[in-house]
């Protein structure tokens, strides 16, 4: 029987296929909890979870909060503006203070790649990466893979196209690592400024025309264009992006009927995806949100339980 022995989840890159499958199977058991009349189990009763978000986020934080509450943990939210980081304290000192306050689990969102690993190696608390710069966002990767596996019953052999802003995307990285380990064929699609050829070293295919992947794709995962991170020179303008890479109604009509349309949210209607397509039958965007709770319950449960083993 497979088992989980880690106290932290900092990325999917460091997991092997069995560990990823373990989390997906555990999430499937937890998805059932959300369908009960009493949506709460006592597994993490008496544990304290701190949502420590140094970058703004509402949906990921809320998803972790609901997941923790369904496991009966006590939850405290700390945001960047309320944090002592603004008063000059280092990340490590802030985290040590959280540990001294006896936080069992710290969910960290931070702009620096590697910040979760940094804390995981220095603290006894479990560290869950909720996004570290452009590096990884493992629970988003897991919930995307969970949603795909739930629909197809497998990951191996599926053609998954990830479209858009790959360069800045931690979601893309976590998806790439996880999908490749489970045997999917991954294609990255976008302008060469946002999808450099160097990504091919990871074992994926890079294509600069979305029209080339529509007919073969089993999954199209559209990433958000991150206006807030981008300077203008990555592509000429949003109109041009829509013309070349947007999933318009005309393009969606060329997809296989079984092809899933995914988006990590928040969606920019009319940019990455046409409004009607986002609300259409092939879209699983809102199921991704629901599955996110089950996946995060599985991660919190596994890491809190795996913390009993000295690593």
């Amino acid at each position, binding site marked *: 029987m*497979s*088992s989980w022995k880690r106290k932290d989840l900092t990325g999917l890159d460091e997991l092997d296929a069995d560990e990823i499958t373990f989390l997906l199977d555990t999430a499937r*058991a*937890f998805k059932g909890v959300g369908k009960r009349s*009493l*949506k709460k189990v006592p*597994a993490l009763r008496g544990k304290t979870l701190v949502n420590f978000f140094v970058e703004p986020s509402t949906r990921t934080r809320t998803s972790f909060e609901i997941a923790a509450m369904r496991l009966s943990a006590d939850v405290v939210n700390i945001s960047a503006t309320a944090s002592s980081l603004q008063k000059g304290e280092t990340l490590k000192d802030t985290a040590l203070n959280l540990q001294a306050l006896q936080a069992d689990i710290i969910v960290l969102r931070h702009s620096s790649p590697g910040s979760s690993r940094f804390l995981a190696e220095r603290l006894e608390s479990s560290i869950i990466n909720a996004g570290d710069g452009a590096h990884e966002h493992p629970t988003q990767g897991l919930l995307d893979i969970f949603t795909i596996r739930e629909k197809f019953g497998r990951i191996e052999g599926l053609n998954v196209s990830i479209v858009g802003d790959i360069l800045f995307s931690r979601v893309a990285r976590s998806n790439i690592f996880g999908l490749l380990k489970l045997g999917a064929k991954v294609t990255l699609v976008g302008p060469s400024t946002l999808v450099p050829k160097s990504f091919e070293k990871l074992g994926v295919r890079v294509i600069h025309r979305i029209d080339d992947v529509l007919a073969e794709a089993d999954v199209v995962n559209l990433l958000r264009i991150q206006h807030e991170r981008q300077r203008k020179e990555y592509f000429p303008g949003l109109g041009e992006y829509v013309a070349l890479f947007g999933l318009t109604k005309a393009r969606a009509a060329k997809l296989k009927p079984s092809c899933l349309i995914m988006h990590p949210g928040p969606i920019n209607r009319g940019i990455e995806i046409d409004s009607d397509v986002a609300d259409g039958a092939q879209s699983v965007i809102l199921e991704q949100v629901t599955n996110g709770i089950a996946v995060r319950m599985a991660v919190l449960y596994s890491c*809190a339980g795996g*913390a009993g*083993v000295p690593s």
Partner: protein
Amino acid sequence: MKADPHISESTQQMVMDAESMEKAIRRMAHEIVERHDSLNKLVLAGIPTRGVEVARRLADHIEKIEGVRPYFGTLDISMHRDDLSTRGRVTALEVTRLPMDIDNRPLVLVDDVFFTGRTTRAALDALASFGRPSIIQLAVLVDRGHRELPIRPDYVGKNLPTSLEQKIRVRFENLDSVPDSVFVIKP
């Protein structure tokens, strides 16, 4: 016959063979039938891993005896236990499968071995989040003693007094690829 190649024969003793297990489960099925009027509403909820197999066999026997198959389901209790952080590692969870509505239905929890009663307590907690059965009973293949809670089984395949150091190993041919058997493993 070797039951488990990893353990030498001198440390284990067979206490039930395939025939005695079959008889014990059949007798338990008769007892369940005797005490329940509405078998079409009855739910047998097996606790993973081997409680599920005992429940499946009870359902088969009840169907043979009365021609009515009770609902057979799975109840994973791992997430309802109170010792998560002391167990050291986390094992895979099974998906719980129960009827949509267990309110006012008679329900028999089924496990392979009854020991301290803590698993049963967790199962009772788990059931409470699904609904309110009209009655909850407990069926076990082996009762090995050492209760730590005021909980006791209603249907017992075999009473087997043991010492705390001993272990009970239940094997099913269809799950474990060795003949149906119950062994006492001595330290």
